[in-house]
């Protein structure tokens, strides 16, 4: 009978109450189950941190790659000067920078903005941004205004207006790809960013701050105001 396999009867009980059962806890089963759950969680944790550290490496690689694009554009520009306007194609370069920015934001959402690797990549990213900004500014001067350039200073540390400003800027960028936004975390320790902060006189209580064509706008700018500033019609 299969029943005996599951419900062991103690001898005394077998004599007294023939038809009742002595119940058993399948302790081994529960121990295995808990062990399986722990192993799966640990494995999952290790695998995911492996995959995500791989992502940091990937992002690092991208920032290295973008150098080549930046360099080729710069060289081309230097080489032929103003006559290069027609041959100059910065679309790819723009897109790449934009993609790095988006991925960096994603990593920041995963690891938090205080993660050392995130900070390091962000510092590097701001340098790439400044370089792109300088080149675009020069192209705009030599070849006529091609793109609207916006410097945007914000902080993740306690600034509600910055969140809103980010939403507005992303929205405008989606509608008008001719606008490039270069965003800088205020508290990044980076001499180039420090310099920009100094010349535009930016302090924490003035965040978010937007700089367009050398003009500085402190505090939150609504979508309408920004469109006016950027000379973009709605």
């Amino acid at each position, binding site marked *: 009978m299969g029943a005996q396999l599951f419900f062991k009867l103690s001898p005394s009980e077998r004599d007294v109450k023939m038809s009742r*059962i002595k119940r058993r806890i399948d302790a081994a089963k529960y121990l295995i189950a808990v062990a399986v*759950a722990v192993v799966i*969680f640990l494995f999952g944790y290790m695998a995911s941190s492996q995959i995500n550290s791989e992502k940091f490496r990937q992002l690092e690689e991208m920032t290295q790659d973008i150098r080549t694009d930046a360099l080729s554009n710069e060289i081309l520009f230097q080489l032929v000067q103003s006559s290069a306007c027609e041959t100059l194609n910065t679309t790819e370069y723009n897109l790449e920078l934009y993609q790095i920015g988006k991925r960096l934001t994603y990593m920041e959402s995963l690891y*938090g903005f205080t993660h050392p690797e995130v900070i390091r990549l962000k510092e590097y990213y701001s340098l790439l941004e400044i370089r792109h900004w300088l080149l675009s500014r020069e192209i705009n001067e030599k070849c006529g205004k091609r793109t609207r350039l916006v410097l945007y200073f914000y902080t993740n540390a306690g600034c509600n207006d910055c969140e809103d400003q980010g939403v507005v800027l992303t929205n405008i960028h989606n509608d008008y790809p001719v606008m490039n936004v270069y965003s800088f975390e205020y508290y990044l320790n980076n001499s180039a960013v420090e310099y920009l902060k100094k010349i535009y006189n930016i302090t924490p209580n003035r965040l978010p701050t937007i700089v367009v064509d050398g003009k500085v706008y402190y505090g939150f700018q609504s979508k309408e105001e920004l469109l006016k500033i950027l000379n973009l019609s709605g």
Partner: protein
Amino acid sequence: MLVTFQDIVVSVLCFVGIITSTVYLLTIFSKKKWEYSPDPKFRPKISVIVPVWNEGSNNGERIRKTLDSLLHARYPKEKLEIIVVNDGSTDNSLKIINEYKKFGVKVFSYKKSKGKTHAVNLGIKHATGELIAGLDADSFIMPDAFEKIVPVFKDKRVMAAMPSVKIWKPKTILQKIQFQEFLSSVFVLHVQSELGGVPLVSGACTVVRKSFIDKYGPYSTDTMVEDLEMALRIQSHNYVIRHVVSANVYTSGVKTLKAFINQRLRWFYGFIVQMKKYRKLIGTKHGNLGFFILPLSVFYIFLNVFVFSYTIFRLIQNIFKWLREVSLVGISFRHIFDFSFDPFMITIKNTTVLPIVLLLTLGGFMYYIKIVSEENQPILTPFIAFTFTYWVLGPICWMLAIYYYISGKKVKWGPNYFSS
């Protein structure tokens, strides 16, 4: 990586899910052969009691189907006593039932309706069989059901045995949801039966040993879940309840959402009341039942309600966030179809992967139970319908049940026919 509150919630859910699934898997794979092959020599007499209340519509289509299925059961005619109890029907039910007298069906009547449990107990009073089965008038049995159930009573410790109760030909989405709901409980019962701790017996054709009823009383009339009470009573006396997975009984399921919620409300409310009454079963004295099955059921209620409330909270939070964005930049449909898919942004971590794995495991379990319970109806659409709706419907019913229990409010249950 950052750990959000959501991560913790999902982790706890997954952790419990993995433990439960593993115990289920181990139980399935270590399964011993429980189902006894039909034995022509072992044929105890069965008394089947069918309570009837206002079954006259469509010329008694449902009750005829129920009685016909009993008359066609593969079991010796002289060993199968069919007792119909007319519980004060106000339509022509009695006339329809009386037609069946010529087939040997016994009919008893209450002049005024007293409720299903009373009707069943009246039937038990007149029953002459060693085994008692109740069958609701909205259900019917497969011809081999008794043939498959009866052999487990060779074991003297088995006091009750129940078949797999499933939904017959689900048409509407609500019925498909119920199909999956019933199939899941068939699976869970199957495992609980292997673990030796079935905590409930269904009203649909559960077979109970008459000697147990004689000694410990018939179905309890002061509860709405007399079947659950009977099961816990059997368990509390340390007897065995078996589930015979391949013995099939079909029921039609409720048709309206109101009836659906009302039915679950009654089950869940009854569950809470009975859990309180039989709380001494929880612990280490009653084996797997007290250590795993009952605590898990209780924990599941809280988890269910908590996860649902948290999801709703997050949903509201996101709606507010969205509204704020709309107030900043307006609604724009220009980019609504620009899905820029970046594989870089797929987050692979426990809380994103494990829920999918668990859902697949659940699907696997359903496929397994489809095979072992010899179910021929398709299971995929019900599974999908269930997955998308039950995380809302279930917790709502649980919360209502908890609310009614705590507030002590009397619930208008209505007649508890055709719903167990």
